[in-house]
């Protein structure tokens, strides 16, 4: 039949035998994949650490140490605070939104519409999102003006779209829909028969939620929190555009060092800040994978 089988090049073997033959060389087909990831992701990431621990010219302590002292430590704390706050609010408000939308049974298209919209909003970010919020809540924003009409001056109250409260509100625009998308299937996974069983055994609604519903939703809530945290922690474009590059967030700070023309001899600090970001993300994503594995075991 003239097969050209790249895996073994055989003419008479059955497909099963051919498959067994390939088993011996099974990682071969994955070489392009691992090579690509190695070249364009792992190597740059590892070099980052190598550059970060190199001794700096005019400093006794390594850049890795310096990146978690003084102002740099402050920006890490600022960024982590922002990420935790937007993740917590996102988990709470996103779950509530999912529960509310699932509560509405008619019209039927509404649920699909909300899911599609959440899909768009969760992926929204970057420059257009920053533009939208500058137009809404900036000093000359439409909503700012409307609130002012009712006698509350946001500017006088200390609110800026580029400060902590401002960035928090903007990030919620993608955090809430992301949590919504995580929670809709999780809520749907709760079978009606479970709450009926609990009720027939005499459990009050709060007891059902406390002892059945919430424990079952815990992996989704926890996993969602970690995902939202990493989402906020690694975001750059929105914060950059909101603050014209002046935000105290770590990702925005790194930019100074990469351009290399602001503080001479401190390039390594940029690498060190990025290295610390990777460490924090590594912890977060390991936690996320752990929660997900547990959840998958549960479902089987």
């Amino acid at each position, binding site marked *: 039949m003239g097969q050209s089988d790249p895996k073994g090049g055989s003419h008479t073997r059955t497909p099963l035998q051919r498959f067994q033959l390939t088993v011996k060389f099974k990682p071969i087909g994955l070489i392009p994949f691992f090579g690509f990831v190695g070249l364009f992701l792992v190597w740059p990431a590892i070099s980052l650490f190598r550059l970060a621990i190199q001794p700096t010219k005019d400093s006794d302590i390594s850049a890795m140490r310096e990146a978690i002292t003084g102002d740099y430590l402050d920006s890490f704390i600022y960024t982590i605070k922002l990420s935790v706050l937007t993740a917590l609010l996102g988990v709470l408000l996103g779950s509530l939104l999912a529960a509310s939308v699932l509560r509405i049974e008619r019209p039927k298209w509404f649920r699909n519409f909300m899911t599609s919209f959440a899909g768009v909003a969760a992926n929204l970010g970057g420059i*257009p999102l920053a*533009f939208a919020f500058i137009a809404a809540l900036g000093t000359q924003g439409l909503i700012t003006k409307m609130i002012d009409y009712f006698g509350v001056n946001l500017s006088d109250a200390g609110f800026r779209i580029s400060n902590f409260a401002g960035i928090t509100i903007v990030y919620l625009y993608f955090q809430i829909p992301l949590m919504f998308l995580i929670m809709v299937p999780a809520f749907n996974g709760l079978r009606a028969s479970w709450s009926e069983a609990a009720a027939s055994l005499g459990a009050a609604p709060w007891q059902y939620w406390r002892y059945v519903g919430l424990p079952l939703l815990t992996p989704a809530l926890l996993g969602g929190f970690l995902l939202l945290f990493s989402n906020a922690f690694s975001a750059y474009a929105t914060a950059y555009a909101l603050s014209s590059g002046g935000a105290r967030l770590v990702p925005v700070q790194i930019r100074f060092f990469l351009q290399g023309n602001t503080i001479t001899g401190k390039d390594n600090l940029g690498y060190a800040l990025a290295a610390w970001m990777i460490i924090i993300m590594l912890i977060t*994503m390991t936690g996320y994978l752990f929660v997900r594995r547990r959840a998958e075991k549960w479902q089987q």
Partner: protein
Amino acid sequence: MKFLGKIWSRLYIAIAIVFFVAPLLSMARFAFQRIPMISLGKDNLFKRWTIDGLLTTLRDPEFLHSLSVSLKVAFFTVLVILFLMVPTTLWVHLSAPRWRGVVETVTILPYVVPPIALVVGVSGTYRSIAPWFLASNYSLVPFYAILAMPFTFRSLDVGIKALDLRTLVDAAKSLGASSGRVMWNILLPNLRTSLINAAFLTFTVVLGEFTIASLLLKRTLPMYMAQAQGSEPQGALGLGLLILVLTTILFTLVSIIRKKDSTSINVKNINVGMVP
């Protein structure tokens, strides 16, 4: 979900919709109404609406250039990621199922290295050994392919799991089909939903990516928008809104396609596009 009263859930949804729509409306007003905020009042709310700002921007040669850069990079990124991930995912399922966990974990690595950290590492390595590489606009392609890897793998993995892959391949081969024919006539058509899903998502992610492009100083569409915000703010915001609308249409198309084929996304396989 019965723990919320019907009225409360409706009220909450209404508030949420206001939160999500108000910024978009404000953006539209800023982009398309030629009245400064200070003099806006009840009497001139519906006056002087125009799309001139957007039109000026759309005719700007700088814009056209950035659009063409972004579209080319997006096109090649889709090609690269599919050429890389389709054979890899098929191979994992056919020949190396034990490696599935390893490959899946590796595809999540881009979440561990945020774009800002990746681009710092890239400039720390490639700038000294291959400056010609970073000088080209196409140097963005492999890094964008890395960003697209998590959801591309997930999408293909879900699609392949829904097929009886081994039976399909063995049946086709025992009927005498070559490997290329199996791939082209059997596997790719069966995976079209996954492929389209991954391709569209990659396309939108690339068109919106700002971090890597801005630090490698590439004149892509988001870079153009960020710069135009200073010189031609109305046009820049109009363009931002236009891109939001087009993205929404793309996403809606994807979800329609996804619904027609029934490889639905469940909680394990939630298609999370991380925001760059």
